[in-house]
């Protein structure tokens, strides 16, 4: 992969943390543990999912073989399973605030929209 493209993905990864920190700070205005926990857990899940996808795609594309393709499929399934299990635990058992959780999960989307808008103007 080219340096510039690698830089873009790294910039996205770095900015994910900044957006999460800003969202958590914003959530403190509600003065509710549930809201802050929802934003934090949602954001962490989104960022971990993004990093996991990035890593498995990088591994698959760096050496394309039958083994790596199978590994990617396995990693994809494990990632989705882990994500769904975590969300189920957070919503059904931990009872975090659902809107705060959705806001936290939007970290990557906000980041991508920000990059797109920045590049458009």
């Amino acid at each position, binding site marked *: *992969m*080219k340096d*510039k*493209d*690698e830089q*873009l*993905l790294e910039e*996205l990864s770095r900015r994910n943390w900044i957006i999460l920190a800003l969202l958590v700070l914003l959530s403190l205005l509600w003065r509710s543990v549930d809201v802050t926990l929802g934003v934090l857990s949602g954001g962490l899940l*989104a960022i971990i*999912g*993004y990093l996991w*996808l*990035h890593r498995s*795609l990088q591994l698959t*594309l760096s050496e394309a073989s039958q083994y790596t393709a199978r590994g990617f499929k396995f990693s994809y399934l494990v990632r989705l399973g882990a*994500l*769904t299990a975590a*969300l*189920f635990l957070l*919503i*059904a058992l931990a*009872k975090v605030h*659902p809107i705060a*959780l*959705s806001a936290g*999960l*939007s970290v*990557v*989307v906000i980041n*991508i929209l920000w*990059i797109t808008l920045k590049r458009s103007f």
Partner: protein
Amino acid sequence: MEFFAWCMIAAGFGMAIGSFGTGLGQGLAIKSAVEGVARNPGASGKILTTMMIGLAMIESLAIYVFVVCMIILFANPFTAQVVELAAK
């Protein structure tokens, strides 16, 4: 009782439609990216970066659908009202 049955139907259909759309979208994105790389291997870095960003964006749609389904099933804000009405 009917309310809970409808909740389950809504969650099931929501998840089915959401995952169908996401699967279709991801499949089309990967297909186009692979075709692009096959046609122009020199642009593979740019294409794969865009694909990666697109996949993350599409996948978040499926996650939102899943969250909404889980809210409908386990954290429905109307459950208390419905139980209260049913008890009357």
